[in-house]
């Protein structure tokens, strides 16, 4: 009997599982409509994400994708990099789903909420696998449209609605710019498929260099929006602050990673610098963006009064660090810088989501939003505050977890590529970030509590999610070996 061979499309199993989970959630909703407290919904959503993530991990472990699997006429590709990113998205989705169980208690439209989260995760998973500008655009919209709705999901909260509208308007604008950029690139090359674009560019694009340059820049703008990088970062502080905290975590971790997943693949595969460098030096553009983004994000974060808004700006700062992954390319250490960026996104998926989920916990308790409101919180909730301290110190790059590893590997790789000045700017920003992150730590542990506020409950879901994120952040430090290896090979394969 011949061995049963899986069809190629089975490699998309994580995306398929996520898509089915979203549909299943709608079915459950039609059986128990208008539920306001539903562990089944949160459970299904988390389970779907865990299964999808487990599949991706299994594929990675068993070597699926080491030879990239092309699907649907090469419009999609499953390789180590896409699976690596699926792990990030599904981990964040699982954490957010578990935490939302408590956060949403008493709210209506619960099924819609979880469905939108899982649908957005499906879109992100497809983004990581997109190998054609057409699929990039479609999956990007699949990830974005649910996100707009999720930011505004607290219908009666003015901040939430305003943030959703702002996010949607800027999103629509950047989608238009992105689509126009795609059309210009198509006009020059006659192809949407990434590798074919590169091949066509290799045989020259006589007289159309200007059109191509504008097209590439517009595509770059689309990614800047998705990753909350300068110049399309304006939406981020408002959206992250106004959105329900779990959604802020979801967007700032998973959605950002998805943007970078596409950016890595599109720029490295479709626009090889050797062919287009004389016309449009996108590496230079990313260098400028990286420096401006990290500096702006960190300086703005240092001046905030509200913790959630500080985290929002710090998330822009981290986008700047990750941009080093593109900005330090072609210095002789390509796989190093790109995988450094991927690793930072992975760790960021846990430490940043965890930090936002801690905010969700604090909002759940009804503690205020400013740094002062956090005074003495550690006395009342030591475990949660310990977890938050782990997140903040990791974000700042102190060695209480893997955030240290990923940041220093990224900076080190940039130095190795000869871009020591990028690392130096990153280092200055990193030191500044220690200042504002430690303000939260100071408030929680050092300051004396004000007033006689008491914490009445310990919500299980939020605690589980926050503690799990903290444990993973720390444990990744010890288990960094296999992760680093996978990321490096994934990046190296992209340049092969």
């Amino acid at each position, binding site marked *: 009997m011949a061995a049963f061979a899986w069809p190629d499309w089975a490699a998309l199993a994580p995306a398929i599982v996520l898509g089915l989970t979203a549909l299943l959630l709608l079915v459950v909703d039609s059986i128990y409509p208008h539920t306001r407290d539903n562990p089944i919904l949160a459970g299904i959503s988390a389970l779907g994400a865990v299964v999808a993530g487990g599949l991706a991990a299994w594929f990675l472990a068993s070597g699926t994708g080491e030879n990239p699997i092309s699907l649907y006429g090469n419009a999609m590709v499953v390789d180590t990099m896409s699976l690596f990113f699926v792990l990030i998205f599904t981990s964040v989705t699982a954490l957010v789903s578990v935490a939302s169980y408590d956060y949403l208690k008493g709210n209506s439209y619960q099924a819609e909420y979880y469905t939108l989260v899982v649908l957005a995760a499906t879109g992100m998973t497809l983004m990581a696998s997109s190998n054609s500008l057409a699929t990039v655009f479609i999956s990007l919209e699949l990830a974005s449209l649910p996100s707009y709705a999720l930011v505004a999901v607290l219908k009666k909260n003015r901040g939430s609605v305003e943030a959703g509208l702002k996010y949607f308007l800027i999103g629509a604008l950047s989608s238009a710019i992105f689509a126009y950029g795609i059309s210009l690139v198509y006009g020059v090359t006659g192809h949407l498929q990434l590798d074919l674009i590169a091949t066509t560019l290799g045989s020259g694009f006589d007289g159309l260099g200007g059109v191509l340059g504008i097209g590439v820049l517009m595509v770059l703008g689309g990614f800047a929006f998705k990753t909350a990088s300068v110049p399309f970062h304006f939406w981020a502080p408002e959206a992250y602050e106004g959105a329900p905290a779990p959604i802020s975590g979801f967007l700032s971790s998973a959605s950002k990673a998805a943007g970078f997943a596409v950016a890595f693949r599109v720029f490295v595969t479709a626009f090889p610098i050797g062919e287009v460098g004389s016309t449009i030096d996108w590496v230079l553009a990313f260098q400028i963006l990286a420096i401006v983004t990290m500096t702006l994000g960190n300086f703005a974060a240092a001046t905030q009064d509200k913790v959630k808004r500080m985290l929002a700006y710090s998330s822009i700062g981290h986008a700047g660090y990750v941009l080093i992954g593109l900005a330090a390319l072609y210095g002789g250490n390509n796989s190093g810088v790109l995988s450094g960026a991927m690793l930072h996104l992975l760790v960021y998926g846990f430490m940043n989501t965890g930090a936002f989920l801690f905010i969700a916990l604090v909002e759940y308790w009804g503690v205020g939003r400013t740094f002062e409101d956090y005074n003495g919180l550690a006395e009342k909730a030591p475990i949660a505050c310990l977890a938050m301290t782990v997140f903040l110190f990791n974000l700042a790059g*102190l060695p209480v977890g893997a955030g240290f590893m990923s940041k220093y590997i990224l900076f*080190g790789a940039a130095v190795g590529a000869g*871009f020591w000045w990028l690392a130096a700017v990153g*280092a200055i920003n990193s*030191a500044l970030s220690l200042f504002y992150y430690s303000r939260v730590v100071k408030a929680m542990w050092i300051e004396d509590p004000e007033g006689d506020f008491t914490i009445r409950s310990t919500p299980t879901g939020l605690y589980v999610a926050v503690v799990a994120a903290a444990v993973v952040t720390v444990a990744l430090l010890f288990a960094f070996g296999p992760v680093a290896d996978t990321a490096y090979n994934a990046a190296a394969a992209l340049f092969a």
Partner: protein
Amino acid sequence: MIVEALLAVTLLSAFAVFLAPDKIAGKLAFVLSLLPAAGSIWMYSAFDGSGNALLAGGKLAFEETFKWVTFGPYALNWHVGLDGISMPLLVLTTVLTPLAILAAWTPIQSRQSQFFGLMLFMEMSLLGVFSALDFFIWFIFWEMVLVPMYFLIGIWGGPRRKYAAIKFFVYTNVASLLMFIGFIALVFGLGDSISSLDMPAIAQALNSGQLGSLGGIDAGTLKALAFFAMFIGFGVKVPIVPFHTWLPDAHVEAPTPVSIMLAGVMLKMGTYALLRFNFTMLPGVAKDYAFIIALVAVVSVIYGALLALAQSDLKRIVAYSSVSSMGYVILGLVAFNMYGVGGATFQMVAHGLISGLMFMAVGVIYNTTHTRMVSDMSGLADKMPITVAVFVAGAFGYMGLPLMAGFAAEFFIFVGAFHSTVLAGNALALFTGAAMFGIVIVAGYLLFAMQRTLFGPFRLETDYEVGRASFHDVAPLVVLILLVILLGVQPNIFYHMIQDAVGKMALLPGGGA
């Protein structure tokens, strides 16, 4: 697995103390901290290393290597081991920690389990710094020290503790980042000749001239740039003038036991790293810029001493005199011969004990009088005879009185500096003479402060009953002064292994011993 066991026991002790109730935390921490102390003394007796850990031919004691992370062409391995330079510092750390914990029983009256847990956690990180031989592992421990230190100053410190904690935190973090960039540039400059961040491998590759160019910067410039990035990075920790401004703030605000660890062990991280990285890996640059480095050393000695002279707070006096004493270490290093580097290493241990002693004595005085201002008190000698006797003895140790540890260290440093071929022709005698003059200033301000506070008729501006200090306050003082005298009478306890470890290294710049 000896080093791992030492680290694991210390870490588990830290967790046990975290979970213990406040009432017994101090006692539990003290008992548990005796375990690593006993362990390190056993390790000292079983020490079988020879040569320098980073150089060819060095045989390490308790060496252990296993794979941790591979990142592309580079492996980051767990690699620990001890040589004659790190072994004494390891013993210093484990011996000073229980004494500092005893000194914390009186002043620390809130959140004890957190305090003592953090002290043990800090001890673990410090032990890691002195035993790690892979750069990344070493760097993890190096940065990890900051975390407990931030909380220890921030929560239990004096009135301006929040400012002091954040200043210390950011200042030293910037320094670490600068050092990191400098070192990593060297690693990538070495290209294919190394395949890991193993410090011995890197040191040997650098010393055999394998460094290439990186990003358009040629090898010579790269070496010099990396040297100065690392010199400033480590110099902040030492601290050298002009990067010393965090130190008085941190010291004055930190509670006594934390000051003991800060001055006693943490400052040594800086000089230890300078010795390991700058002087062992890039001896050529150290030789080329010997004049500047010696100048920095002498300025630190004199300026630190003059600053101490200007203070009216006993703790500030001791804090600034640390700047001065660490300047001697730099001078010994840059002399770059066996006496100089050996004396510098010995000074790390000697100063660790003596400055710990001084901070502890000031702490005991403060516990009873609730003031540290020189002008607020006089004639304490009649009221607290033992404390004052130890204080006076420690002060003489600071001045380098023979038969005390400080004398042995400073004597070797000056002998080394006078014989230095590296410094020769760079106004050698002037440097060494100026540095020796620093001792006169030290004697001046210590005698002046002691005369006013300890002797004469009893007077106290604060309204407290001055009685004898309790046993657990005085006992560590007595233990420390005995150790200082022991090392002064019998420097070979450590000097022998130090000499063995620095011998080969001292030949690196091409001069004689």
